[in-house]
């Protein structure tokens, strides 16, 4: 059982039933399933290779248990993540409050983790504009303020889903490149100690 090598850990965060699992399902399996069991489709962990330029980046996508009963332990989940897709339901303003909470958590605890704000179920507001509870421009401002990317997606139609994950992979690739050149600089300065160069947050 040799599992696929994974370059970066990407965690899905957000309130229960905002559509985390559906988003992964749509991206990885190109499908959106309806029916009584739809919130249980999809695997909990997926390794997904993505072409970025002439390179292939493999994202390890971690879905998390949505139930609030496990919320106290969710920090164990996002530790070491290079990207977090923080989901909120465009038709549910309370879910955006939860999203703000996650953003704060991540800013405090995972400085190497890039944040992607993702408004889900955009197909619903396409049908009925009144359903929208989260303003696009407000969110855009918030995203810029915190240095995050901002997407609105629909797992039902697939709108913007590939773009989101593609951006995650590209950003990781750029950051990894930058990171490596930074490291070189450090190495030159501290040649002797570089053998035991240590940092706990940069796997």
């Amino acid at each position, binding site marked *: 059982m040799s599992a696929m090598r994974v370059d970066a850990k990407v965690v899905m965060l957000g309130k229960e039933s905002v559509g985390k699992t559906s988003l992964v399902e749509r991206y990885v399996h190109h499908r959106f399933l309806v029916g009584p069991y739809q919130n249980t489709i999809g695997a909990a962990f997926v390794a997904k290779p993505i072409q970025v330029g002439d390179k292939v980046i493999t994202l390890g996508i971690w879905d998390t248990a949505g139930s609030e009963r*496990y919320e106290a332990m969710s920090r164990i989940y996002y530790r070491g993540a290079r990207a977090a897709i923080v989901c909120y339901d465009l038709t549910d303003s309370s879910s955006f409050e939860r999203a703000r909470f996650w953003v704060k958590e991540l800013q405090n605890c995972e400085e190497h983790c890039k944040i992607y704000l993702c408004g889900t179920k955009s197909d619903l507001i396409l049908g009925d504009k009144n359903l929208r509870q989260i303003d696009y421009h407000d969110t855009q401002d918030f995203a810029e303020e915190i240095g995050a990317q901002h997407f609105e997606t629909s797992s039902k139609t697939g709108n913007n889903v590939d773009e989101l994950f593609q951006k995650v992979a590209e950003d990781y690739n750029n950051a990894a490149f930058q990171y490596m050149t930074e490291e070189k600089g450090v190495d030159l300065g501290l040649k002797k100690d570089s053998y035991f160069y240590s940092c706990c947050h940069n796997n």
Partner: protein
Amino acid sequence: MMSQRRGIHLDQSELLCKKGCGFYGNTGWQGLCSKCWREENQREKQKQIQEDWALAERLQREEEEAYASRHQKTQSQPAVTPFSKFEERKTKEKSSKVNTVTKFFSPSIKTPPKKDAAPFDPHSSPSPSSSASRPSVDSDHATREFIDFLKPLKSGREVFKQCRAFTESMVYKREMGADELSECVQDFYQNLSERLQTQFKGSSDQVETVMDEVEKYMMTRLYKEVFCPETTDDEKKDLAIQKRIRALHWVTIEMLCVPVDEEIPEVSDSVVKAITDVIEMDSKRVPKAKLGCITRCSKHIFNAIKVSKKEAASADDFLPTLIYIVLKANPPRLQSNIQYITRFCNPSRLMTGEDGYYFTNLCCAVAFIEKLDGQSLNLTSEEFELYMSGQASPHWPQSAGASSSSPGSAALTQVHKGLDLLTGLGERQERVMEKARQLESDLIDWTDEVEQKVQSVLESFTPEAQNPAAATAGGTAPAPSGASAIDSDNVENELLPPPLQPQVFAG
């Protein structure tokens, strides 16, 4: 929706780093997170690291010298006898080990290594001089495999020397705390993989493959020293969680909302396999192998869910089911194993990959079990206490009087409680007696069975030409029908010499 909310309502601050950085703290790190713990200990460690490095360098120099001198002597010096070698080892244990090993990388060797060939094995001859570091048969095997793996690699010899020197140097650090040991190993992993990438131009996949073998070699050799070391309270924690899980024996599938139907044979089969795998984790030495057990366990869980629900499982189904499996399995030395994996596994595997995902879930499951209370199972705290104390069980509802205590009188309540307790005890005694009776009858059955087996064995050994009279002759034989006792009369017996008589010698 919120009213149905259950959860372990633990105080976040309990879990967080004492420095207030927002990370999770760890009691093993004095309540700090790994980052703050590192910073806190940086200066002290820097000194230690310098010393380690000096030691590693010294060992390497010794190796080179030994290697060089060995090369000059190869023609003139035949095999060393174990005894003279023993003397040599007493003073130069390190270098003599290298000699045998480096031979493998030198092109002059013509015969391929025999898998169990003793001469190759630097540790097989008894060597009382070695410390606790003396590797066992397992680690010798690991060394051999490691060398076989590295041989075709351009940088193989270099990698082996580094790993060997480092592993040896770890032995001098036995006094060190577990987390410092962990940090040394992690730093070594990181540095080596960086060098493999930059100096030896390995691809990420190649580096990972090599690092897996490095981990296997090093941890097989260091396992005894660094698994559940005395410097930690890992063992205490093992016992605590074991006791805790035993006390939670009454928790049902329904309470945890586990979407698994054990009535279905394939599901119960998967559940049993999952339990077996998570228990098996303790028997593995290498962190990666332990992780493999968790991953296999998880795959069985996914199958159990899939078959029960007739569709693929999600994270929402998986975690509760894993909690259920851990409760059922009560895996041995659970905390020690988690700590060991956390400390000594390749970090990339633990943090990003699929194994890491399942491992993280296991950590969550354990945290959940530790903090679990009535609310997390949708029970009142009274029910929870009753079940925990064994006075009642969801399987045999508590006696009728339990809920009907008369309002005014505290004394009466006391009496009722006492009565309940007695009823509970009575029932428990009843069950114990029942079990005892069952055991007794089982024992009787078993005796009968054994008797029958003995008889049938005896029958199968009876010579065909046996005198039928012999059967009746042995009146004391336990089974009458046609069986022959060993000492029964036999015609051939007359041909045997008389038995020897004891003789008395004058003193």
